[in-house]
């Protein structure tokens, strides 16, 4: 390959990375057919790799790709409809996709509309995050499947089904009007957070697809915050993810051991990310509409205070969990609140709060048992702490956390 050939190759790849979601959104918003848009674009990228090394990179690569993808989409449509005779839809499609080749016209950014389509309540909740990762970021089904612990065949089937549902049921590609935005935005933010949470479970970065997932989810969060700057929960979600990501390096020792938040070396926290998260939270607060993500980010902010003040603001943490409990009534929140309460009122108060949580729903929830074990140990009740540690160890997936819990249990001394 000549030097300009290599240039063209690199440009094609750079455009692919930067513009993939934008181009899918542009095409799909006009045809409602996500799968056809993806197919047409992948052919257009292949054509670019074949042509650009010889002809040079066009001035407006995105417009070139759209024009090429448009031709492919129309060809594919024509092939499908051949048996049914001429379709008026073809002319419509050509018109809707019209953007003059060689133009310097900016491709409108409709990725937010694509996010709202992917996270539409008519789409199965479990597939919303994977669908966003595929359509906006171009992840393949196998990568998404491994991150979400699903077989590639099952994941690709779910993705295909969701795209068919978008096309056949007429799910709109549109950012909802004000009256509906409050109802629909949480679906989008939840799906982004679900993608982040999948990535978060692998802090050591041993599984690259998961590690990538966390940073790509942050990228989606940035996109949502940038396109919806007046939505405090979009800012809150980004702040929450940045606080989590800032501690990534501190969550494992050099030996790969799990380090709990309270023992993390704050020098290893990413100060720039924390500062950005704090600035986002301040901006969100000025919009005067508190929500779940802002509260959860504020909890992380109270923990991050240890960096400058030497200790977390436990009173703030308890108050924030109280507010979260009011909003969500989630048992997971109740567990976190009990642990925070133990810091302000002592382990017995924490245990009493934990006893009030509906334990039957949590019998297989590892954090419940590790919180219980931890508080019992701190209260000096080692005999009760040991079996609670055993439950937690038996339920844990991550070997580093399992080792950590085993060490804690061994430190209690005494029986098995």
């Amino acid at each position, binding site marked *: 390959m000549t030097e300009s050939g290599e240039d063209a190759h690199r440009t094609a790849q750079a455009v692919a990375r930067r513009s993939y979601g934008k181009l899918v959104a542009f095409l799909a918003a006009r045809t409602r057919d996500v799968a056809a848009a993806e197919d047409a674009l992948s052919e257009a990228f292949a054509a670019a790799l074949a042509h650009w090394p010889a002809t040079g990179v066009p001035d407006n690569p995105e417009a070139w790709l759209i024009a090429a993808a448009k031709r492919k989409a129309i060809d594919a449509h024509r092939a499908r409809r051949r048996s*049914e005779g001429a379709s008026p839809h073809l002319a419509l499609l050509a018109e809707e996709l019209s953007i003059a080749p060689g133009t310097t016209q900016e491709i409108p950014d409709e990725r937010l509309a694509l996010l709202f389509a992917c996270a*539409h309540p*008519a789409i199965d909740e479990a597939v919303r995050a994977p669908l966003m990762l595929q359509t906006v970021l171009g992840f393949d089904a196998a990568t998404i499947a491994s991150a979400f612990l699903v077989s590639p065949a099952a994941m690709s089937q779910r993705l295909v089904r969701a795209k068919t549902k978008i096309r*056949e*049921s*007429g*799910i*709109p590609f*549109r950012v*909802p009007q004000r009256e*509906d935005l409050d109802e629909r935005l949480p679906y989008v933010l939840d799906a982004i957070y679900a993608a982040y949470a999948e990535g978060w479970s692998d802090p050591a970065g041993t599984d690259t697809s998961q590690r990538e997932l966390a940073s790509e989810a942050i990228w989606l969060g940035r996109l949502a915050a940038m396109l919806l700057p007046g939505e405090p929960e979009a800012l809150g979600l980004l702040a929450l993810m940045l606080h989590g990501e800032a501690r990534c390096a501190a969550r494992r020792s050099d030996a790969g051991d799990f380090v709990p938040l309270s023992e993390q070396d704050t020098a290893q926290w990413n100060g720039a990310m924390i500062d950005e998260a704090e600035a986002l939270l301040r901006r969100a607060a000025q919009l005067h509409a508190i929500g779940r993500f802002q509260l959860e980010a504020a909890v992380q902010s109270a923990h991050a205070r240890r960096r400058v003040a030497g200790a977390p603001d436990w009173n703030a943490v308890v108050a924030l969990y109280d507010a979260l409990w009011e909003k969500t009534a989630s048992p997971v929140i109740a567990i976190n609140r009990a642990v925070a309460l133990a810091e302000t009122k002592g382990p017995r108060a924490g245990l009493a709060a934990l006893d009030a949580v509906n334990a039957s729903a949590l019998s297989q929830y590892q954090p419940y048992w590790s919180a219980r074990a931890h508080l019992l140990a701190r209260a000096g009740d080692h005999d009760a702490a040991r079996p609670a540690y055993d439950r937690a160890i038996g339920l844990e997936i991550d070997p580093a956390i399992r080792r950590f819990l085993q060490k804690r249990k061994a430190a209690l001394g005494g029986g098995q």
Partner: protein
Amino acid sequence: MEYMLVLFSDPKGFAAMTPAQMEETAGAYYAYTQALQKEKALVDSRRLKPASDATTVHVEQGKSKVLNGPYIETKEELAGYYLIDVPDLDAALKWAARCPSAHHGHVEVRPIWPMPG
């Protein structure tokens, strides 16, 4: 796009109504149908007699088998439909939420196969 709003409700609820409640419900459906008409979204609508009046037919090896009752017995039964023509699913979901059946029963929103030609 055309959608069918398929209405499901418990006929016992209707049977238990006082005449005043029945009149109120009928008024609500009338107003809803009017609103759909005014917005030029209504294609067609019909109310069905109860499932206890249904007869089900299945042909097996050339012989027609006739069964008394609906194909599927459910507490909430198919009670009627609205065929509407609106721009997209969100518009259809909005109309479904306004339908009185959505309050005392369920409304299933189904896209219609477009007819060729």
